[in-house]
């Protein structure tokens, strides 16, 4: 069920980040070629096209590229920088303030200076229309069309670009929203989103927020994708442009343009998909992913080869670590997303003191400019990367020599700012900073493991991103995880995920039935009818479906949170029925530590996922990634330098390898540093590194683990 690039077909993945744009092309001969170019934040499509031009310069443009898969931060940046469209919101009469009121909780206690995130739609553009539908879908008050017309005339006049529509109880009966949709579609040039087109779920605030974000993003994302398409056309690209969604599936450009709220975690999701793919091939089905860049670190979990999903994401509120309960720091987006926890700890995180003398690292970050002190570009405040430089974990240059490292500047920053205060030499303080940064990032890892009732010792840590491999062993030691995996191309790993991802389409159907009142026959019929309907609609839009996945959201009747339980294919006979109910009780016990087998189980939603076109099969992808590695390039001679491993171990003479190919067959004991083009790996004392048959660097320690 997987495709290989056939004939002269080329598949390309492009991931844009704040500093660099990574491009990897999978060629028909099974090779991969890659380019890393500077991102062009004013118009990211320029950087992409530039990179593609470099990569394909020896070829005849992009004609052989059949599909280009894109991971992008355009949506996230647009929200963080508040650069979305001028957006209006249409609500039921009496409820214009729902979006600003939110859930009234705050994510931090005792803060007299707290600020709510500013409303993305000013009150003057939150427009009420007379209408009302009750909780059973009955019309209480008919929609006043003239209210809508009056508002839209005014909006036109004032240059509103996008309109979000969210009416009360539209998840039960969308008739009024659709009526407004018809009036909106008579006004060309105005982008709009109806909540009932995006999601049919109870909860007016969460649905409004999702709808507003979508409308707010639509013009920006649409214009961006237009520019990208036009740039690609100039390069003779005639294939399909696909965009990565927050759920780890690819969507076509039309869907991305209509539903940009679902691509907010595009890039981070790709990294998890890559981990899943490489893990499957290499025999690691239970992984905690650890993706560390310059400003944040992200963690997620892959269990039995499956990624973990969450029904909601909160954006624009800065950093999150699975803090769904303490939400309120940002705008919720109700959509199935890969469950990621994120903390503000990266190479650029700043070191600072509070008034009682407490030492902290992050979440504030130096950003790309001026960067850490050791970059020598004017930064004076010590960062995590400076600590790594003082500890000699990174050498004289990174990124293949393109970024020189001035270690003495890191020393000065740490000594002046921190070491004097603590009365300790800079290397000891640097080690403390390194440990605190690791501890901060562990919160993200705990959020996706311990807080979900999963014991990290049952998992392998897979580390990637520019800085992931520098901290992985330290974190694994603290979490008592016995094995760390550093895959090939760790520094551009997200792109591998773009090449592995399937093109997917999702549907959530709100059912809300008590399972004890529903026999297996009833359920089979209910699910069957929804499936049939869904597949017919996809086919009528010319979409091929290669596989259909089914999940049900279950909870104990009365609870507010559900757990997603996969449903086996085929008719739901009594046996299958009993099996997935038992699976729910077990999942509840596993996740929360208790269950209640005697209680009534409620079916909340049915989720259908159609796989329309699969990505490159994991095997092929892994083979290509291995070849992409510059296995024999450059000098192989190992050198040594002293590096500092804490007060007990002290300074140790440390072997430095230029590539992972330098790891001897029998493995090598730490301390070892491997400096590759896209990432630096640290193997501390007590850990061993070896290369597996898939060119993963596998770190193991004697200390561990559940086995």
């Amino acid at each position, binding site marked *: 069920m997987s495709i290989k690039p056939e004939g002269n077909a080329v598949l390309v993945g492009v991931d844009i980040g704040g500093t660099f744009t990574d491009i990897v092309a999978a060629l028909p001969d099974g090779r991969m070629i890659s380019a890393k170019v500077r991102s062009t934040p004013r118009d990211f499509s320029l950087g992409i096209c530039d990179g593609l031009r470099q990569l394909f310069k020896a070829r005849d443009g992009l004609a052989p590229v059949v599909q280009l898969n894109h991971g992008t931060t355009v949506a996230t940046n647009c929200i963080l920088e508040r650069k979305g469209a001028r957006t209006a919101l249409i609500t039921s009469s*009496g409820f214009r303030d729902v979006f*600003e009121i939110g859930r009234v*909780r705050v994510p931090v*206690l*005792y803060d007299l200076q707290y*600020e709510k995130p500013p409303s993305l739609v000013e009150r003057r553009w939150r427009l009420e229309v007379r209408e009302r539908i009750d909780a059973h879908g009955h019309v*209480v008050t008919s929609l006043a069309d003239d209210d809508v017309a009056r508002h839209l005339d005014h909006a036109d006049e004032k240059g509103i670009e996008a309109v979000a529509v969210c009416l009360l109880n539209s998840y039960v009966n969308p008739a009024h929203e659709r009526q407004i949709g018809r009036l909106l579609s008579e006004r060309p040039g105005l982008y709009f989103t109806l909540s009932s087109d995006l999601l049919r779920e109870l909860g007016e605030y969460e649905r409004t927020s999702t709808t507003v974000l979508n409308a707010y993003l639509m013009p920006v994302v649409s214009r961006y994708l237009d520019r990208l398409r036009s740039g690609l056309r100039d390069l003779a690209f005639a294939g399909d442009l696909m965009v990565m969604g927050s759920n780890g599936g690819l969507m076509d450009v039309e869907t991305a343009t209509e539903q940009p709220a679902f691509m907010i975690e595009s890039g981070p999701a790709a990294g998890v998909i890559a981990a899943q793919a490489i893990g499957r091939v290499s025999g690691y089905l239970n992984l905690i992913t650890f993706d560390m860049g310059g400003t944040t670190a992200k963690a997620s979990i892959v269990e039995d080869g499956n990624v973990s999903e969450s029904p909601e994401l909160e954006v624009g509120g800065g950093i999150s670590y699975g803090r769904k309960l303490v939400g309120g720091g940002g705008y919720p987006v109700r959509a199935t997303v890969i469950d990621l926890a994120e903390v503000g700890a990266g190479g650029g995180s700043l070191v600072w003191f509070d008034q009682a003398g407490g030492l902290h690292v992050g979440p504030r970050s130096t950003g790309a400019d001026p960067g850490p002190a050791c970059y020598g570009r004017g930064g004076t405040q010590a960062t995590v990367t400076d600590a790594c430089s003082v500890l000699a974990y990174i050498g004289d240059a990174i990124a293949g020599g393109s970024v020189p490292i001035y270690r003495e500047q890191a020393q000065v920053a740490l000594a002046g700012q921190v070491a004097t205060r603590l009365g300790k030499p800079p290397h000891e303080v640097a080690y403390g900073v390194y440990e605190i940064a690791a*501890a901060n990032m562990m919160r993200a890892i*705990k959020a996706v493991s311990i807080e979900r009732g999963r014991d990290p010792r049952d998992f392998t840590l897979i580390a990637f991103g520019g800085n992931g491999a520098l901290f992985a062993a330290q974190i694994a030691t603290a979490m008592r995880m016995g094995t760390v995996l550093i895959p090939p191309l760790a520094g551009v790993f997200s792109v591998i995920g773009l090449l592995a991802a399937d093109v997917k389409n999702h549907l959530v159907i709100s059912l809300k039935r008590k399972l004890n009142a529903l026999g297996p026959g009833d359920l089979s019929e209910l699910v069957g009818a929804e499936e049939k309907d869904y597949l017919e609609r996809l086919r009528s839009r010319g979409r091929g479906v290669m596989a259909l996945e089914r999940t049900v959201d279950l909870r104990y009747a009365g609870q507010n949170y559900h757990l997603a339980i996969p449903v086996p294919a085929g008719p739901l006979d009594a046996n299958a029925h009993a099996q997935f109910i038992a699976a729910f009780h077990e999942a509840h016990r596993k996740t929360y*530590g208790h269950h209640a087998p005697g209680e009534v189980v409620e079916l909340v939603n049915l989720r259908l996922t159609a796989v329309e076109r699969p990505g490159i099969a994991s095997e092929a992808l892994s083979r290509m990634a291995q070849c992409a590695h510059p296995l024999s390039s450059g000098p192989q001679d190992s050198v040594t330098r002293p590096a500092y491993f804490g007060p007990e171990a002290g300074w140790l003479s440390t072997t430095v390898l230029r590539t992972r190919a330098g790891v001897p067959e029998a493995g090598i004991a730490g301390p070892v540093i491997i400096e590759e083009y896209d990432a630096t790996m640290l193997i501390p004392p007590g850990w061993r590194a070896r290369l597996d048959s898939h060119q993963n660097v596998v770190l193991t320690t004697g200390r561990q683990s559940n086995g």
Partner: protein
Amino acid sequence: MAEIDPIALELMNNSLSSTTDEMMITTHRTGYSGSIKYLIDFSAALFNARGEMIAQGVGMPHHLGAMPGAFEAIVRKFGDDIHPGDLIALNDPYDGGTHLPDIYVFKPIFFGLERVGSAVLMAHHIDVGGRTPGSMAADNTSIHQEGLRLPPLKLHDRGVPNQAVFDIIGKNVRAPDKVFGDLRAQAAACAIGERGVLALVHRYGLETVQRTWDALLDYTDRMMQGVIREMTGGAYTFEDFVDDDGMTGEPVRIAVRLVVTEDSLAVDFTGSSPQAKGAINSTFSYTVSCVQSVLRCLLPPETPNNAGAFRRIKVTAPEGSFLNPKYPAAVAARGVTGCRVDDALFGALSKALPHRIPAANDGGNTSMRMAGLDENGRQYILMEVVCGSRGGRPNKDGIEGINNPNQNLSNTPVEALEADFPVRVNQYGFVPDTGGAGQYRGGMSLVREWEYLTDAMLQVRADRCRFVPWGTQGGRPGTPSENLLNAGSADVQRLPSKFVRDVHKGDRFRHVSPGAGGYGDPLERDVHGVLEDVLDEKLSLDYARRVYGVVVDPTTEKVDLEATRLERQRLRARQPSIN
């Protein structure tokens, strides 16, 4: 004082707070009642062996300072008769609790045979029996009307559930399935707390862990010491009022005297009203808890949340006053009193730290219960709170649509209410021209109107109908709350601040929350801030002119600067020179 490496401290603090986070999340995801799943009316904490709080989840600030009292009651009752596998509960205000709906669940944590601490999850239950559904009536006059009293008792005794206790609870509460479901969630959360603490002990060793906990307490104490030293020594007094006690209609006075010395703070409530007839009495433990939560706001938010913050704070309230009542005073509605304790103490602080303390917040949430029998004859109880706004601050406006800083509850989705209860919500939003004017204005009032689709009981506990939130530094006071039945119709009725009554199918109950106080002279407010509020229909044109002296031209949507200058001049001339 224990000296520990700052790095080890930060690591320990992160570990403890991620454990309390986890306790909170588990409770929320698995709870059954609206109190847990929507309102988030519960709190998690970890304690050391001495019963000092070493970490707190992002729950209800008002809950936490009361926990030591609960801990003492348990020790008083059981002494050394506490064993691995025990799960201890209590709710009695005269034996460790603060009001009956709040049930504390404690799990002692043992490392081998040594008790090293405990995990606590306190939750507000949807009903604990008594006179009215929801067990929250303000017009109770005795604790015996308020529901089932649980002295410290073992829910689980060495791992074995105490069935007799569960049976008694089941017969005495109106929604036993919800109460039992929530108790299960509390127990699960405590088990998570236990696991988190034991993981630390296994990793670092008991001696190191305890030493680091002590150092964390010392650290927070040092932070508080720093704050106290910034304050000018002396005595600062303030008074504020609860509108009435739900029975007599008489105002109830809170008098506070804050004495700042070089190294300590003393908070005394002598002069406050005697014990009230109605249920607004606040147990002394709750009064102390509210004082602590206010003073905690003086520390940077990221300071480790532990009992170290309160070592230098002494609280006194005369026995027999409504801030330290004697048995059998009713206490169900003590939440409103706690909020007024906050307001009074913030008022005193605003004299000591005028450039740090905002004007008064909304004065606490309004709590509402609707109850009746559903079509299957089963009791339903709808529990809601309306949370409003915060006061103007020394450097920026207050906020609307938020909790005050010492409560942290959530609202219930309108669609969830309408799906589960025979009620419809007609309006939920801000009320223009409310809140106190100021250079930095107070947050606006919120309005919520419910329409009843069947006959039902309605119980409301509001306040600030008469005594509005105060303004400061020349800022105007906030605006009153309102309770109206069938507003806008010919037979509109103004209801008291606190009541229990029947409502009938078709009746509409409308609550307007208080608007928060303003900070600084309104005539000093940035004219563009006023313009934005006018364009956003938060202020009317007339109000902008009358109160702020800002003249907005509605056609150009601009400020007429010259007219504004003259208008402000005119208003200044008329202002009495009180500020």
